[in-house]
C-alpha cells in the first residue's frame, strides 16, 4: 500500500495515471451534472412555500458543502506535505485553494440570491453566513500568501502552514459565531433547517453533490498536471511528453 502511494506520489507516475483517468472522470462529471440539473430544474416539484426560487438550492447546498470539504482536504494535504515532505501533497493543497474559494464564493452568491426573495435582504449577519464569509477570507489568505512568494517551495510550505493554523481556527470561528448570534437577541433569520426533505428533491441534491465532488477532482487533477509539467519541464519525460503533443 505504502509502496503504491509512494509510486503514485512520484510526479511522473501521477502524470501517467491521472492522464488515463481524466477523460473518464470528466465525462462522468458532465453526465451527472446534466442529470442533476434535469432532475432538479424540471422533474422536482415546485416548493409549496417558496415556489420556484428554491431550485437554487441544487447549486447552493452542494457548493456550501464543498467549500468546507475542500478546506479540509487542503489542510490535510498541507499537513502531509509538511510532515512527510511529499511534493505532490503540497501541489494538491495549493491547487485546492482556488477551487475551494470558488465554491465558497458560489455558495455566498447563490445564498444571497436566494436570501433576497426569502428574507428580503441580500445579506444578513447570521452565524452560518458569517462563518462562510470568514472561510472565504481564510482561502483568500492562503492564496495571497502563496502568490506572494517567488520561490515555489517556500510558498507552498508557508501557505500550507497557514492552512493548518486556519483549520484549528475553523471550528472556533464556527462556534464563536453561533454563540455570538444566539446569545444576543432572538434569531432575526428564519431557521435554515428545512422540514424533512422530499425524496424528489433529495435525489437531485445528492446527484449534484456527487457531481460537484467529481468536478473538484477533475479540476484538481488538471491543475496539478499542468503544475507538474511546469515544475519538471527540464526533465526528460516531460520533454518527451511535450514532443508527442
Amino acid at each position, binding site marked *: 500500500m505504502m509502496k503504491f502511494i509512494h509510486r503514485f506520489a512520484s510526479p511522473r507516475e501521477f502524470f501517467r495515471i491521472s492522464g488515463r483517468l481524466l477523460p473518464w472522470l470528466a465525462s462522468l462529471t458532465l453526465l451527472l451534472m446534466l442529470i442533476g440539473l434535469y432532475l432538479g430544474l424540471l422533474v422536482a416539484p415546485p416548493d409549496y412555500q417558496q415556489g420556484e426560487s428554491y431550485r437554487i438550492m441544487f447549486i447552493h447546498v452542494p457548493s456550501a458543502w464543498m467549500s468546507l470539504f475542500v478546506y479540509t482536504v487542503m489542510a490535510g494535504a498541507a499537513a502531509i506535505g509538511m510532515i512527510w515532505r511529499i511534493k505532490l501533497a503540497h501541489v494538491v493543497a495549493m491547487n485546492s485553494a482556488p477551487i475551494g474559494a470558488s465554491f465558497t464564493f458560489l455558495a455566498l452568491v447563490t445564498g444571497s440570491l436566494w436570501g433576497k426573495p426569502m428574507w428580503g435582504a441580500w445579506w444578513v449577519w447570521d452565524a452560518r453566513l458569517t462563518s462562510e464569509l470568514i472561510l472565504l477570507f481564510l482561502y483568500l489568505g492562503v492564496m495571497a500568501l502563496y502568490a506572494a512568494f517567488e520561490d515555489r517551495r517556500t510558498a507552498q510550505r508557508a501557505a500550507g*502552514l497557514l492552512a493548518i493554523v486556519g483549520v484549528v481556527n475553523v471550528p*472556533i470561528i464556527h462556534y464563536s*459565531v453561533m*454563540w*455570538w448570534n444566539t446569545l444576543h437577541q432572538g434569531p432575526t433569520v428564519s431557521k435554515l433547517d428545512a422540514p424533512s426533505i422530499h425524496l424528489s428533491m433529495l435525489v437531485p441534491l445528492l446527484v449534484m453533490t456527487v457531481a460537484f465532488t467529481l468536478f473538484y477532482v477533475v479540476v484538481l487533477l488538471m491543475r496539478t498536471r499542468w503544475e507538474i509539467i511546469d515544475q519538471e519541464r527540464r526533465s526528460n519525460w516531460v520533454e518527451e511528453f511535450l514532443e508527442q503533443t
Partner: protein
Amino acid sequence: MEAIQTNAIDAFTTIFRRDLKLAMRRRSELVNPLAFFVIVVSLFPLGLSADSNMLLRVAPAVLWISALLATMLSLESIFRSDYEDGSLEQLVLSHHPLPVIVFGKIAAHWCTTGLLLTLISPALGISLAMPTENLGILLWTLLLGTPTLSLIGSIGVALTVGLRRGGILLALLILPLYIPILIFGASAVDMAMHKLEVAGQLYLLAALLALSLTLAPFAASAALRVTLE
C-alpha cells in the same frame, strides 16, 4: 539537561530585555500603538453624530476593534526589523530552541502594546460614555484577549516577514483568526452593560489564550524557518 534548561531561560530573558530596550530606544514605537488606539477610538464620535446613546451602544465594539487594529499595526515590529538587518538569521542560527526566542519576542511585544492598551482603555471607555461599573470587565477582556492577539499575530508576521511588503497581506491573514477573540471580547463587554452573566466568555477567552500560548511559539518558529530559506 539541567544546564540546557537554565540556558533556555537565559535566552528568553536576554531576548525579552533586548526587545524592551529597543522599544524604549525608538521612543515612537512605545507611544504609537497607544496613540493609534486613542485616535481611532476618537474618530467614532466624529464619524457618528456624537449622540451619546448611540456612542454607548457601539462603545464595546469600537474599543475592541480599535485595540485589535492597533495591535495588528504594531505586529510587524516583532520580526521585521530583525529580519531586515539580518539579526533574525543570527537568532535562528543560535543554539537555543527557536520557540523560546520567539516567545521572548512575543512577550516583549505584548508588554509594549497590549498591556499598555489595556491599561489606558478605562479612560477611553469613559470618553465613550461607558458607565464606570463596566470598566472592570473591559479591562479583564482586554487583559485576556490582547496576549492572544500578539501570539496569533506572531505567526502571521513570521509568515510574511520575508516578503517585500507584508503589511496589508498580514492583515488579510490575521484578521480571520482574530475574529473569535473580537466576538467574545466585545460581546462580553456588551452583555455586562446589559447586566448579563459573562463568565462564559471570559473562560473562553482564557481557553483561547492557553491554546495559543502553547501552540503559537511553535507555529511561528516553523513559519520563520520556512520563510527564511
